[in-house]
């Protein structure tokens, strides 16, 4: 039988639907998650299946409804809240990091906050400074939140299922460019085989998307797609890149990172988040800590160069790592 192909957005909504059927305590809250189906389709079709009591459109009040999700979770429900764009986190951050993230710890482990906060990330379509960010590094910095950043439809379904079943707060970051939306720039990697039955993908296990021997590319989300495309180009020039998709930042698969670098002796981090004080620094630090003696060249970081995302296409394309720039940087690294 032919494999069933789904887009990432359908994979996510399927995971949510299956878990909602399995568990009455799961429900969805967010802006435009109902009739609209979620601006990025993560809840498409769910209103028809489950009705407005379980697929709840919210007033524009992220602090209020994400805080309400926290309160419902501590009462034993398993809410899935959608923050439409991660860029809006500032309107809700107190609930996200002072409450959602900390209540379990502050309670001495006596209270659980089993909820999922899903949110859209990423740029490359001229949505400018307030609608194009990634910011997963910021959430990975504050303790108490599991940080999940899928790149494939298969992972998206399995990681979402895992997230819903997890007894902890999980932030689930889907990149608009990996969702397979009809109105985004087409991305063949955004559609892929997804089993129909429910399954989980465990947190904390990176995926080696491509084996290689000349350098390790550490990345995730849309940048995993671009890194794979770059790796194909590099292969034509005889450079063999290993591409590691981290999949989750918290927990982080430190072992996979270190092992790969010990094998290839060169590492490049490709990140769509801001460069400084974020993911790329952390990964480079880990490599320096655990594989210093194996490095034949300094770790290289390719990320947004600490500027807000500009609107105009040429500028935006200049700051977000592209396939060409990834390939060029990899060549430089290998030549060092």
């Amino acid at each position, binding site marked *: 039988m032919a494999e069933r192909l789904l887009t990432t957005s359908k994979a996510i909504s399927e995971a949510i639907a299956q878990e909602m059927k399995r568990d009455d305590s799961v429900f969805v809250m967010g*802006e435009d998650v109902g009739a609209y189906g979620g601006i990025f389709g993560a809840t498409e079709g769910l209103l028809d299946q489950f009705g407005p009591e379980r697929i709840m459109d919210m*007033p524009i009040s992220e602090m209020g409804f994400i805080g309400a999700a926290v309160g419902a979770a501590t009462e034993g429900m398993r809410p899935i809240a959608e923050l439409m764009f991660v860029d809006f986190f500032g309107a809700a951050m107190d609930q996200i990091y002072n409450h959602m993230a900390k209540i379990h710890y502050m309670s001495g482990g006596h209270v659980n906050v089993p909820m999922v906060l899903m949110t859209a990330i990423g740029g490359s379509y001229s949505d400018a400074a307030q609608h194009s960010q990634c910011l997963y590094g910021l959430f990975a910095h504050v303790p108490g939140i599991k940080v999940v950043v899928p790149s494939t439809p298969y992972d998206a379904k399995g990681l979402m299922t895992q997230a819903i079943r997890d007894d902890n707060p999980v932030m689930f970051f889907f990149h608009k460019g990996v969702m397979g939306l009809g*109105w985004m720039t087409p991305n063949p990697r955004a559609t892929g085989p997804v089993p129909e039955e429910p399954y989980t993908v465990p947190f904390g296990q990176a995926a080696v998307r491509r084996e290689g021997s000349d350098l390790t590319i550490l990345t995730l989300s849309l940048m995993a797609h671009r890194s794979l495309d770059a790796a194909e180009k590099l292969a034509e020039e005889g450079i063999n890149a290993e591409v590691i998709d981290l999949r989750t930042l918290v927990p982080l698969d430190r072992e996979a990172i270190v092992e790969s670098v010990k094998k290839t002796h060169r590492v490049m981090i490709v990140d769509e988040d801001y460069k400084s004080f974020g993911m790329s620094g952390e990964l480079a630090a880990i490599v320096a800590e655990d594989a210093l003696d194996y490095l034949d060249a300094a770790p290289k970081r390719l990320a947004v160069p600490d500027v*807000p995302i*500009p609107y105009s296409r*040429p500028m935006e394309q200049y700051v977000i790592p592209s396939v060409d720039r990834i390939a060029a940087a990899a060549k430089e690294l290998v030549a060092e």
Partner: protein
Amino acid sequence: MALNRDELLDLYRMMVKIRTFEERVGEMYYEDKLPAFDIAAGPIPGEMHLYSGQEAVAAGVCAHLRPDDPVTSTHRPHGHLIAKGEDLKPLMAEIFGKKTGLCEGKGGHMHLFDPNLHFGCGGIVGGGIPHAVGAALAIKKRGEDRVAVSFFGEGAANIGAFHESLNLAAVLHLPVVFVVEDNLYAISVPKSVSTAVRSNAERGAAYGIPGVQVDGQDVIAVYEAAQEAVGRARRGEGPSIIEAVCYRYRGHFEGDAEGYLKPGEKESWKEKDPIHILGAQLQGQGWLSEDEVAEIQGEMTALVGEAERFARESPYPAPEEALEGVFA
């Protein structure tokens, strides 16, 4: 105080100007995006929230404003900025992402700033409301008679920044007018799903601020409510809130399938079109002929055409300019 012919014609012309601009942007938006719609493609990429249908609010309020009166707007800002007096060329060029744009291509359609017109906006719902309060605070500190105005949607009235801003404006007795454009929806979510109160104007009472709800299709009604509120602020008598009930014709953003609308809803609102309403009134008074209607439309089409040409012919910024301007 009844408006005279010139005042009414100014309002009419402004509404036509905004409508013409928005409709042309709406057309150009789809260039090179179809047949398989790609939001990133074409001369105008990214999200696009147009103001068509709501012109009476911007025109009616901004008629009372001077260039030095601060205005904050939203993700749907073109109408406010045009009514505030912006030149269409740098505005259009910014929407095209060109170097000659208001923000040199860095801001884009949702992030338009003009210090000469004291105008700012942004893509975060409720984000501009505190800025207007702060501008009003600056005005008060300097003892000036300027007035700050913040435009935002009825959806924004449910966010915390609204509450904090109105409370602060009230306790500091600041010269600021809050204008809620109730266009019935926040994206797909109708007002009835997002709040249990009928009118956000009533919320003024929670802060000790006078509030009034007006018909946002009727530019004269908006004009009069704004006259009172802006006058109050200019005289140092404190903040006000106006809610104008209106309707957006083009969906939340371009590409919105509008599956959430009731059948016939949009059509029935189009029958109450603000430009037609004022046009009919003017024609009834004998103050506007069919020829003049066509002439005004022609003038605005030409202005928008010029802006379009300017935008198309302007160069893009160099890619490396992205690295400049994080700090002053």
